[in-house]
């Protein structure tokens, strides 16, 4: 972790198998009971979903035009939201971790608000800011003829609103763990603030970036409450996969289950592909 640790001279990154000779300190047996309970609470519902699914009709159900349209919209908007999260949330994390401003703690509390707020409240808040009668929305409407609510842009904004704190928290954690001393050393070595930012701070962000991006993307893919409140449920423009699932649940339970499994598969794929090493506790 630190640059000083003597450590092994070559680290074999490919092999993550446990060394069978390691004598580990024993875990208290009692710990296993709540641990298994906790795992079951997360894993069993997914298993239940798979058990309930109509596997024969599944291919047909997930390839219906409405389903594909929703999936495509979800992937597209979640991608744009994630990019927005990185572009806006990255600098925000740096300011929160490294800035020397009064009131920074209050600022951080505001940034973390979407984590604790019901998403539907966030959606309403966005609506009253950017809606036709909203604080800013009315001027966008009259001056620029821009109407955001109930558009794909609204979906992206809603998703960014709920997903950004995940990225900010990950990146800020990585920066705090690395400490400010690397930047100080870089400065005494003659690097200007901009050089320090690009060549030292940004690389120090990388360990947190993987997990932050995965969390933000997954959160954006799963967004429901804020989207339905701010963007509505218009097929093709704002009806993302979670909204489609909710809609189908009323009429065709099998279709809803099939789409849910599709969402699970996409999430699993993202986690496996990006494999955020910091989220696995290794660097």
């Amino acid at each position, binding site marked *: 972790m*630190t*640059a000083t640790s003597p450590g092994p001279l*070559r680290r074999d990154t490919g092999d993550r198998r446990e060394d069978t000779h390691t004598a580990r300190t024993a875990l208290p047996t009692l710990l296993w009971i709540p641990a298994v309970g906790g795992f079951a609470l997360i894993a069993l519902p997914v298993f239940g979903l798979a058990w309930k699914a109509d596997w024969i009709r599944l291919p047909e159900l997930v390839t219906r035009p409405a389903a594909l349209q929703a999936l495509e919209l979800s992937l597209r908007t979640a991608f744009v939201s994630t990019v927005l999260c990185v572009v806006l949330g990255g600098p925000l994390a740096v300011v929160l971790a490294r800035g020397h401003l009064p009131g920074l703690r209050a600022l951080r509390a505001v940034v973390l608000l979407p984590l604790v707020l019901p998403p539907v409240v966030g959606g309403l808040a966005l609506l009253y800011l950017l809606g036709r009668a909203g604080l800013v929305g009315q001027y966008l409407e009259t001056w620029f003829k821009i109407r955001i609510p109930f558009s794909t842009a609204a979906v992206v904004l809603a998703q960014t609103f709920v997903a950004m704190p995940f990225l900010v928290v990950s990146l800020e954690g990585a920066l705090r763990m690395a400490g400010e*001393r*690397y930047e100080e050393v870089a400065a*005494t*070595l003659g690097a200007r603030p901009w050089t320090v930012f690009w*060549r030292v701070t940004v*690389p*120090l962000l990388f360990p947190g970036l993987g997990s932050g991006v995965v969390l933000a993307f997954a959160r954006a893919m799963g967004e429901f409450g804020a989207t339905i409140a701010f963007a509505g449920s218009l097929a093709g423009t704002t009806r993302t996969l979670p909204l489609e699932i909710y809609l189908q649940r009323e009429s065709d339970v099998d279709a809803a289950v099939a789409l849910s499994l599709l969402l699970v598969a996409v999430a699993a794929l993202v986690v496996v592909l990006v494999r955020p090493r910091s989220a696995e506790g290794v660097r």
Partner: protein
Amino acid sequence: MSTVVPARATALAAEIELARAGFALSVALGLAPGEVLAVLGPNGSGKSTLLAALAGLLRPDRGRVTLGGRILTDVTAGRHVPPHRRGIVLLPQRPLLFPHLSALGNVAFPPRSRGVHRRTARVVAEQLLSEVDCLELAARKPAQLSGGQAQRVAVARALAADPELLLLDEPMAALDVDAAPTLRALLRRVLRGGGRTAVVVTHDPLDALVLADRVLVLSSGAIVEQGPTRSVLGRPRSAFAARIAGLELVSGTACPDGVRTPEGAVFAGHRDPTLLAGEPAVAVFPARAVSVHWERPTGSPRNIFPVTIATLEPRGDVVRVRAGAATGGPAWADGLHAEITAAAVADLELVPGARVWFAVKAAEVALHPAAGQS
């Protein structure tokens, strides 16, 4: 080995006053171009705060820092040059190599930051890495380096910035016993050979002896003692300097058997492997390794010389016998100490003014290259 980057030796003058919670630093110091100052002091005496203020990482409450005629800090005039434009490099205790860059990338960082072309920076970095004997480690990431290797790469990186003033914050403290002598020899080559102006914060009087022209002892944020290294460590006036020193010094020139003193006598001891015959050197030994005799002893000790007892100072259950030069004896014996038990003083009936012999076993004597002019 020659220094690749020509040193920019510059004079430093600093007055710094800085108060933090429960602690106040008030220091004035000056360094001539190419001079190396060792700052010694107990933990919490303000050594690191002093370095941070010089490097511009802390703003003093009052004071002025000038480096080669440039005003870097002037609190009354509201001037504070930021760290990256000071020409002062801080080598911290931990090497703090950038974890995402290779050893070569780390050393190339300062020239690249100055806008030097990638290929030129690479050549400079390779030269400096070979100067610190780490060229074969160029491709390694910091995580793949040992503590000593990482610190040597950090020295190369500091030199790559071509600083006018080099600040070293206990560079040997985080290293294991085996790696410290190598780094000390390297720093000596870099600081002494290159003629760099530098401030070295250290706990170890040996670092001061080997690296520094002058020593400054800090205690609770104030200077309690300063002067040429050998006189401060040889005749410590402050309690701290005496405690860390506790060392007796004889200086001269290195020769194959030991240190040749100005009179031509050879002081025998263990040789530091980096010591070259003909260069200035010191023989260092603890006062308790010195025995006192009325007659010239004929046993195994190799270093035997006559002295006159100047003073006898009780220190707990031992007595410090301070020597003066005896007629016909070496002049360098003046100021040396022997530490013997009070019972021995009584048995021998030692009194000030008596002419006695000091004897030191060669096995108790370490020979080191010495900094500065003797």
